[in-house]
């Protein structure tokens, strides 16, 4: 068996990316087959060549510049010697993993009247079979031939003129491509879709805002459910045992004026657990009922098993933009634990069901209301990392507040529907920190301070390192057990993405988009 495996790895693999390969991704750590590295969304690479003892020898091996000044948010996939990256706005490039030379490029022609609130970005591609999948800012899903980049099919997901776009990396599971959408600042009605991976035919759509007659619709005043947003713009997780897809949902719309949408506004700012085959809701948990601060729950849910109050549980853990850390049972959705993990001034705490106990007078006003965390939250879309070796969860935390304003909330299709705004707090020194937490209790084991609140995620590795990036252009490595900074490199552009790791020619590399370039580092 060992011989067969060795042989299999010695030749260039032309095998398809099967569901089984993604499921067992830890058995082929040289590849990175799905957005978060595995279905449990650990963003952990078992590769262990780069360690605390030699990381000081890490040097750039190559870099690749993208042809766009938009934020570069991709997580590369690496499959059998080829790296697949998305480039902003909605392009895909296949690169040779050893040299960084492009093998093919897919360039999408986009309409000039796009509706995107926060940059024409893309966070990565998915792979299944012989196809590479990318969502586009004009709200299409495109399947490309993995060897040539040729378009196999290109289907509209929603109407971009209404404010829909796709920036999320799709999730390939079994025979389906699970796809979220963006547009939460345009008063769209959110959904999560699944498409047949071969044909592009839609298998199901789950509206993240229930329609009339469905449970939850009563949590929206009048017709406000029609424009309530709850977008799904960050890739979720999947558990083969429960056959559930776990996905975070975004802010209710309009963002800062809650008067027009009285009620809890389900399923905004929630985690939803959907049956993969049928797209039916198994359970949901809403982190921020009736949010008026734009605290999307579009963070990455992490699936781990752990012991809570003496009982072994299957868990989903979730550092939320609202500054609380949540531990839920991922089979039932039961709330098990929730504590603040960053400065917050909006809730006295959570009740026994996990519902926040609001501090009065923290809603936005015409004059402005100062509240922590900031509109960008205590964390954001970028990824946390979990290491099965240390048993720790690593989170890039933002410590800042915002002044929140309320304003007009008149819906007009295709126009921004914010109902207010925000600005930084005058005189506040914002900062950030990488925190290593016990994922079951939320207890912080160590922390590493960052000069400003980060906009980039983390990778943990088998070499017991944690990699990340700063706004000021550094890629860095910390000791996963102690947080000691061990290595850094000034890449000349802000980190707006997540690191990953792969093997090429038998050597471990670390890849991280920095500024408008992808950097790849290896030991000299």
């Amino acid at each position, binding site marked *: 068996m060992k011989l067969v495996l060795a042989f299999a790895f010695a030749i260039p693999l032309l095998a398809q990316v099967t569901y089984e390969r993604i499921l067992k991704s830890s058995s082929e750590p040289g590849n990175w087959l799905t957005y978060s590295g595995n279905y449990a969304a650990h963003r952990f690479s078992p590769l262990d060549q780069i360690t605390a003892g030699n990381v000081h020898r890490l040097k750039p091996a190559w870099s690749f510049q993208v042809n766009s000044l938009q934020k570069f948010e991709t997580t590369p996939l690496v499959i059998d010697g080829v790296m697949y990256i998305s480039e902003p706005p909605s392009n895909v490039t296949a690169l040779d993993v050893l040299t960084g030379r492009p093998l093919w490029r897919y360039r999408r022609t986009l309409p000039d009247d796009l509706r995107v609130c926060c940059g024409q970005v893309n966070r990565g591609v998915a792979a299944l079979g012989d196809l590479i999948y990318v969502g586009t800012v004009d709200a299409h899903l495109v399947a490309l031939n993995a060897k040539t980049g040729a378009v196999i099919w290109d289907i509209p997901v929603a109407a971009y003129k209404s404010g829909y776009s796709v920036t999320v990396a799709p999730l390939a599971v079994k025979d389906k491509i699970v796809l979220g959408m963006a547009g939460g600042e345009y008063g769209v009605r959110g959904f999560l879709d699944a498409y047949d991976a071969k044909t592009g035919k839609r298998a199901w759509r789950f509206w993240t805002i229930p329609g009339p007659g469905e449970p939850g619709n009563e949590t929206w005043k009048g017709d406000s459910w029609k424009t309530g947003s709850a977008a799904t713009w960050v890739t979720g997780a999947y558990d083969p045992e429960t056959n559930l897809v776990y996905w975070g949902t975004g802010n209710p719309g309009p963002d800062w004026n809650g008067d027009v949408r009285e009620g809890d506004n389900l399923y905004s700012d929630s985690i939803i657990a959907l049956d993969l085959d049928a797209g039916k809701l198994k359970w949901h948990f809403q982190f921020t009922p009736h949010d008026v601060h734009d605290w999307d729950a579009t963070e990455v849910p992490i699936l781990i098993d752990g012991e809570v109050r003496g009982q072994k549980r299957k868990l989903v853990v979730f550092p939320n933009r609202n500054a609380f850390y949540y531990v839920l049972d991922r089979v039932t959705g039961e709330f098990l634990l929730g504590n603040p993990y960053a400065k917050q001034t909006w809730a006295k705490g959570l009740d026994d069901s996990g519902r926040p106990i609001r501090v009065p007078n923290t809603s936005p006003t015409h004059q*402005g209301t100062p509240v922590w965390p900031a509109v960008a939250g205590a964390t954001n879309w970028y990824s946390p990392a979990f290491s099965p070796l240390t048993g720790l969860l690593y989170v890039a935390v933002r410590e800042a507040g915002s002044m929140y304003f309320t304003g007009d909330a008149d819906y007009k299709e295709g126009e921004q529907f914010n109902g207010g705004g925000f600005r930084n707090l005058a005189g506040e020194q914002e900062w950030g920190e990488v925190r290593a937490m016990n994922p079951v209790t939320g207890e912080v084991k160590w922390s590493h301070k960052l000069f400003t609140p980060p906009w980039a995620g983390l990778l943990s590795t088998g070499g017991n390192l944690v990699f990340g990036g700063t706004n000021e*252009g550094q890629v860095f490595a910390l000791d996963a057990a102690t947080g000691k900074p061990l290595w850094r490199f000034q890449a000349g552009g802000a980190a707006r993405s997540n690191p990953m790791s792969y093997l090429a020619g038998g050597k471990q590399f670390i890849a991280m988009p920095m500024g408008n370039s992808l950097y790849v580092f290896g030991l000299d």
Partner: protein
Amino acid sequence: MSALPISLWAVLLLFQQQPLELPDVAANPYTSNNDIALGKKLYGGRCAGCHGPGGDGGKGTNLATSVLPRAQSDLALYRVIRYGLPDTEMPSHNMTQREIWQISAFVRTLGQADQSALSGNPARGGELLKGKGGCLQCHVVNGEGGHLGPSLSDVGRMRSAAYLRAKLLEPDKDLSGNFALVRLTTPAGKKLSGIRMNEDTWSIQVRDMSGGLHSFWKQDLSDLKVESRTLMPSYRDRLSADELNDIVACLVGLRGESFVETRGKPGAETRGKQ
């Protein structure tokens, strides 16, 4: 407030992210008294924190002036409010078109207010700037002076008389975080103080009192303090009331015209000098 280079960085990033979507009209369609009243309300929340309730500046530029150099046309003003200014701390604002137009309409009324004549003598103020005031020890005016503080060559374009007078009397009030004062002990054990040029998680760059540039890894410094205070003294007891009026009159008249063409700042084209 973070250091200037950091805020600049953030603003630059914000700016580059957003494709410009501008209204398809040349003139502000929302200029009724009702619009202005609503604009005033919005301005109070969104803008007054930096620009002052009467638009006479503060952390933000002086708006109580008949010509806004970077926003001479209605569309230019709309663009500045909607997308911010990339070389300043002016951020972008996600508001509806109508709200932005209403703020614009109110901002235009600020410039119509009577700019009461200043009683000071600008020529005498200029002498004080160089002499008794000692301003040029730290500030540059038209190429002459020191560099520990911000340039004053176009300060009259950015700041109102009221702001400048307040700054001369209470320099520590409403600091932006730019020109933060740094005190540190070098790896060789030498005490050093200066102005922060840049800072990140691991390093800091400092300009010392004589203009020398230094870069340090923070881990090599046994002592590092970044203070949000200014080296500028208060002129409350240093200048007479008349002298203060003279200096303010001089500063208000510094409008940087001789620099506009060479500085190449974004937005320069809106000044009609090219």
